[in-house]
């Protein structure tokens, strides 16, 4: 029975580690439909970053704080790295044949491996034990702090991610992009940004910690990075709707508030006067006679 519980605990811990990797992976795959061969390598960079931070800063602060600091460092580095990868290798190929990004992903994977060998040298790194290693007893089975940390972090991440995807505006945008990027774009989701964020986030998820070498399990931790949603500014739907009813309605709508105002000859409010170089933003041009401006729908009057 003891062995059984012990194995369950071991399985859960190991499974959590994989779950964290898979979480990051599914975010990318779900949104950009790309088998990201470079995922494991970003994980590796996370682990090595954390190792560097820990070995450099050991002794300057308590170990638990060091753990958190290295965790944050790994999150920042990996997110930045994956943003860069997405921007350099995947985004330019968004409209290319489906298999093209697969090849750049493979290239990226190879590149990251090589760069890591250059930066960190191709040998084993011992990772110091940062958390207390005395095991707790649970019904005859033992579990130590690192294992508990892994379980807790995975649970938190899972919960956080579920909340993010199902409940927030950003999550809705991500799901919309996954379903149909073009329509999501029409609805005002900047899907490039969303995708980059998906890509960045998944590696935040994949921080591998090399700790806990004493029991052979890699401890892993990561955090949820909350992003702000930035929508396209919808081109003044309020104004557009009012104008749709009016005589000079614009086929297709879609002008910026500034343009609507300019057409109507109204002075622009200060916060819309963005481009000082644009003289019309300050002085409305002399208006043609209203009659001439109106024209008919088919023969538009003088353009403003």
């Amino acid at each position, binding site marked *: 029975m003891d062995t059984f519980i012990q194995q369950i605990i071991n399985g859960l811990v190991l499974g959590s580690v994989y779950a964290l990797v898979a979480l990051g992976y599914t975010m990318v795959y779900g949104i950009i439909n790309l088998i990201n061969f470079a995922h494991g390598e970003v994980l590796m960079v996370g682990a090595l970053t954390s190792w560097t931070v820990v070995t450099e800063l050991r002794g300057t602060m308590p170990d638990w704080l060091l753990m958190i600091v290295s965790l944050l460092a790994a999150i920042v580095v990996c997110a930045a790295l994956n943003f860069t990868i997405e921007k350099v290798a995947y985004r330019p190929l968004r409209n290319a044949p489906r298999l093209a990004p697969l090849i750049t992903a493979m290239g*990226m994977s190879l590149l990251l491996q090589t760069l890591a060998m250059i930066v960190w040298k191709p040998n084993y790194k011992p990772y110091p034990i940062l958390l207390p290693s005395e095991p707790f007893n649970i019904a005859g089975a033992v579990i130590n702090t690192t294992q508990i940390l892994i379980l807790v972090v995975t649970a938190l991440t899972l919960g956080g991610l579920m909340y993010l995807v199902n409940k927030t505006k950003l999550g809705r945008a991500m799901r919309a992009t996954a379903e149909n990027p073009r329509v999501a774009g029409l609805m005002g989701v900047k899907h490039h940004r969303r995708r980059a964020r998906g890509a960045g986030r998944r590696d935040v998820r994949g921080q591998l910690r090399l700790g806990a070498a004493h029991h052979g399990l890699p401890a892993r931790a990561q955090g949820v990075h909350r992003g702000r949603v930035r929508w396209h500014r919808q081109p003044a739907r309020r104004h557009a709707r009012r104008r749709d009813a009016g005589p000079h309605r614009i086929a297709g709508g879609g002008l910026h508030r500034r343009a609507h105002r300019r057409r109507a000859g109204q002075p622009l409010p200060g916060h819309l006067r963005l481009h000082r170089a644009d003289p019309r933003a300050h002085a409305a041009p002399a208006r043609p006679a209203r009659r001439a401006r109106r024209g008919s729908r088919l023969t538009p009057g003088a353009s403003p």
Partner: protein
Amino acid sequence: MMKNKLVVFLLCGLALLVTPLIAQYFGNAWVRIIDSALLYVLLALGLNIVVGYAGLLDLGYIAFYAVGAYMFGLLSSPHLTETFPAIKAMFPNGLHTPIIVAIPLAAGLAGLAGVLLGAPTLKLRGDYLAIVTLGFGEIIRVFINNLDAPVNITNGPKGLSQIDPMHLGPLTMGRPVDVFGFTLPPVTLYYYLFLLLVLGSVVLSYRLERSRIGRAWMAIREDEIAAKAMGINTRNMKLLAFGMGATFGGVSGTMFAAFQNFVSPESFALNESVMVVAMVVLGGLGHIPGVILGALLLASLPEVLRYVAGDLQAMTEGRLDAAILRQLLIALAMIAIMLARPRGLWPSPEHGKAAPAAAPPPAPLPAGSIVDVTRSAP
């Protein structure tokens, strides 16, 4: 014009024939590089049928290579006769399969394996198919790795050694041959064999591409449902594509085993499959010259860089390892080529567009004719 073409053709043929003789002058290692590049060309041409024509992403292609290699390895190394007394009794002199049996057998066996893989995956598309084929590739490798107990069939991770070179009766490729005062070492003989196979595959691929079957594959690639609606038996066509691609893989596997005299499971790891996919996509999906170019490039680049990396290493005052530099350059090349040419280095002419310059301007349409609006520019 016709005559010019013939001259170019003959010159190309002559160049191909002379290449190993020149390379041989600089050392047999160079001929070896060319040989293995030709093997990859063969593999890439096979995968091109599956991925390029039929549009089925196969990430376990190397499994068929392994099937071919192990088939030949078992049938022409002393392993089987040493392990099983019954076989020893049947073939007291040992199994020595001649080339004329080995090639069709490898083709058939690998083709069968291809159909076996294809059958359960008929309903899968895109990335899901890729995952299943990836799994299949790993299954074959793990299987070979572990089939040394309880009955030792594949000799496990130790691999099969002492595989015969390709031979037919008294003619063997294992010894140098003297022709008109030239000594042709075995590597050069293999070059000619591989060249023959590659040329055969090119002709086969070319004819397939322009056949009813090839058109059916391309229809499936573009839109499977539409292809079905047009009366194409998509099930059989997909199975045929898998089988046909696997056949090429099996034959090149046989050649690999005979060429190396040794096979072990680690030659058939996942990254080999991935590399072959990279060759096909990098060169130009579904376009034979492109695929050949991609395969030659990716197969010979690592080897050629071996010679360059030493100098580069000296430039960095020995701080960087030559092997690491080599890998770095390959990775950069893959990314740069794909970014610069997303459709591949030498892509097939775009679907639905006339060949450049050759086509005369379209005749004005008679009044009242139906215009195909679906063909207009996007």
